[in-house]
């Protein structure tokens, strides 16, 4: 895997760290629910799922 593509995953990790922490996480701290899933949980699960998809694509494309 080329350095550049490895660094995509490193940046993903940094972005996840920021999204999962104060203050960004507080943006989603709303008393409301989406299909019965409170927004706070919903947003965390969404970031989580998104990161899985991104790593899957990056690895699928660039891992030799």
């Amino acid at each position, binding site marked *: *895997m080329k350095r550049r593509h*490895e660094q995509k*995953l*490193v940046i*993903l*990790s940094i972005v*996840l*760290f920021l999204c*999962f*922490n*104060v*203050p960004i*996480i*507080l943006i989603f*701290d709303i*008393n409301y*629910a989406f*299909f*019965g*899933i*409170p927004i*706070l*949980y919903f947003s*965390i*699960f969404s970031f*989580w*799922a998104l*990161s*899985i998809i991104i*790593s*899957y694509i990056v*690895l699928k494309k660039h*891992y030799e």
Partner: protein
Amino acid sequence: MAEKKSENKWVNHPLVYSLSIAVYCTAWTYYGSVGIAAESGISFLPIYLGPVIAVPLWIIAMRKIIRISKQNKISSIADFISLRYGNHRFLGALVTIISVLGIVPYISLQLKAISESFEILTNTSHSLTHNIFYDTTFYIAVILALFAAFYGTQKTDASEKHRGIVVSAAFESIVKLVFFLVIGVYVTFYLFDGTQDIYDRISKTENFEKLISFNGLESGFNWLFMIMLSFMAIFLLPRQFQVSVVENLRERHLKHTIWFFPLYLLLFNFFVIFIAWGGKLNLGETANAEYFALLLPLQNGNTFLALLVFLGGFSAVISMVVVSTLALSTMLSNNLIIPYGYLSKFSKADPEKNTNNIKTIRRISIFSLIILAFLFYRSFSIELSLYAIGLISFVIIAQLGPSFFFGLVWKRGSARASIVGIIIGFLFTFYTLILPFTIQSLTESTFFVENGPFGIALLKPYSLLGVDFLSPPAHAFFWSMLFNTITFLVVSISFRGNYRERNYAELFIDNKNYSSLQDNAFVWKGEAYVSNIKNVLNKFLGTERTERALDLFFRKYDLPKDTEKADARLINFSEKLLTGSIGSASAKILISNVIKEEEISLIEVLKILEESKENISHNKNLQEKSKELTQLTDQLKNANNELIFKDKQKDDFLDTVAHEIKTPLTGIRAATELLIDDEDEMPSELKQKFLNNILQDSDRLSRMINNILDFEKLTTDRISLDSKTHNLKKSIEKTIESLMHIANQNNISIDFSQIKDVEMRYDEDRIIQVITNLISNAMKFCDKANGKIFITNKIAGNEVEVCVTDNGKGIPMEDINYIFDKFYQSKNQNTKKPEGSGLGLAISKQIIEKHQGKIWVENIKNSGARFVFKLPLNN
């Protein structure tokens, strides 16, 4: 046994590796998360968010760790850390002790979960009898201990893979996830009417908002510290190191793990809140929330489902206990027991006995670990929640973090610093986390927690120096990590480094550069004999394996078999060989007993390493150089061949020219002779004819000489173009006009009806020369009986293209590349003798190139050749 099936394909599937890493999810996840979700809301999540953040980094970090471990036959986290700091015996032992202290409560958590879930399932109430023999947990613990002790210790080389254990851990990971999902779906969609239904009902209860919100900025710190804690745990937990590093078969399995493991965790966590809320709604506040997953199906009479849930929890426990104790027993034997006690005994005994001894040590370690965990459970765990016990374990294990992570990136970190840092960090953890609950459960007084020791409020264990907004684990993590890290950094830079330490530091951190050096990367000076080293190896590996290994070594480095003196490479090689069986610390001690090492300075070590690195890059450079040279030679050869060819062409040309000049000259001479000899008798018509012949021949002669001069001028740049604006159509027509009578004589039709008007700048005389050349060439080669020549032009972008096409045989493939070369005459000219000088096309090429254009030829299938030239429009 499964160990033997390791050749099977599916056993080596990357998914097995990914699933085995899910040994991270234990009873704590299985039961504990629901408890937290029901009681305090969102805080069960950070334990999984840390790994989710960490796993993408594995593409760099884990790969490096795996590479280093494979190269050095590392078999545990204790080996890894102690080897990084110069194969330090005490550091390895310290890491082992910390790990045991951290993992014993963790195993007790599993025992607690098993015993409590078993009670719920069998509907017996747990009465804490003082006689442990009436306690079912005791029997569960003993059975588990026996199972783990014999299952995990079938090989002495701990760096070898335990495929059976990994495969069953992977299988158990499937079981626990599937059963947890089943209960999740059951609660959400069978007991309730989907997620919306649960939410609507639970949101009407009191204090619900607390469960779905962040509860302020202060808990943001708790949250952050818990994420950092679990981030470290996924690297440092001995069982995680075991499955992700030691048991890794191929580096490329990471490709799948990096996305699969977070997915596994996501699936595991999705239904947690719904099970928790469903339990709260149906079972009320009094029931133990940790076992909602069991209680809910039991309440509704679904005993079978409850049994499945129990089995899921049980498999989570089994895999955790087996893998953890396997990892810990290796550490205990290789890093604590053997180097600190059994080494001298081992070096006297025979190999078979040693192997058995090592196995026995590991078995006893596993057994006593589980029994220790049982005792911990009996004394402390009963009052603590699963979540609380798990976090205590994590905080203790996290003390290895600074040494581990800095060790991977910072060369100056030292063993001394690592030891002091870990001890100080542990002392803080002990004071702020372990001591309070110990005192509480021993004396049943909360005075220490509430008022601090001797009533000093600043020293209150849960709010040291008045930091009172953190939860106890986060608080302990913060203080211990702060002092651990600072101590590590300060001590590291306060003392000069040790050369051995620095040697390994370079190896670990610059792994990519040193991996090609292999055994050469180990710097050592002194005196050693192969026979002595062989003796040591024999003791542990047996004669056969030793011979085989040494044979391989000698062959690899191209050394004679009867080498007497051992070098650094052999010493490093033998240490690695022994490391698997008895750990790196013991291996170092054993080998250093039979060799005489000289002290080297740090600077010297760095110099030697630098040199061997340079040697390698030197070799690489040399290889590249020789490759370049070969290429150059090839090029020279080609050039030479070309020169020979050109030379031959020139000779041919001179022949042709000489012949050509000779022919008209002979004609002139013969005619002149005749005219002189028979001047009087010759009729005047005949005389006229001879004179005409002489004129023609001298014309031809001068044309040829002009051509040669012309070409010479063009190639040596002694000519400048006289470019003016002309109409290309008119120039072409002019050319054709002058050639028309020759065409008519030879029955050739020239079609130029398609020519378009183009105004552009060029040297008209020169371009006419080119067109003349091309047309005469075409006339020479076109069909004899029915010759046809087409002339067209077109504008393509910024260029004008002129094509002259004939209907001859086309150009033979072997000529196509040379046809524009000077002196070149096609071998297959269909005329009896070559006409022209062989310079026409060469001159044309020069002219076109002077106009910044291009000229080339192409064959048209079955219908002759096409000469094309291209001129730029705004020249």
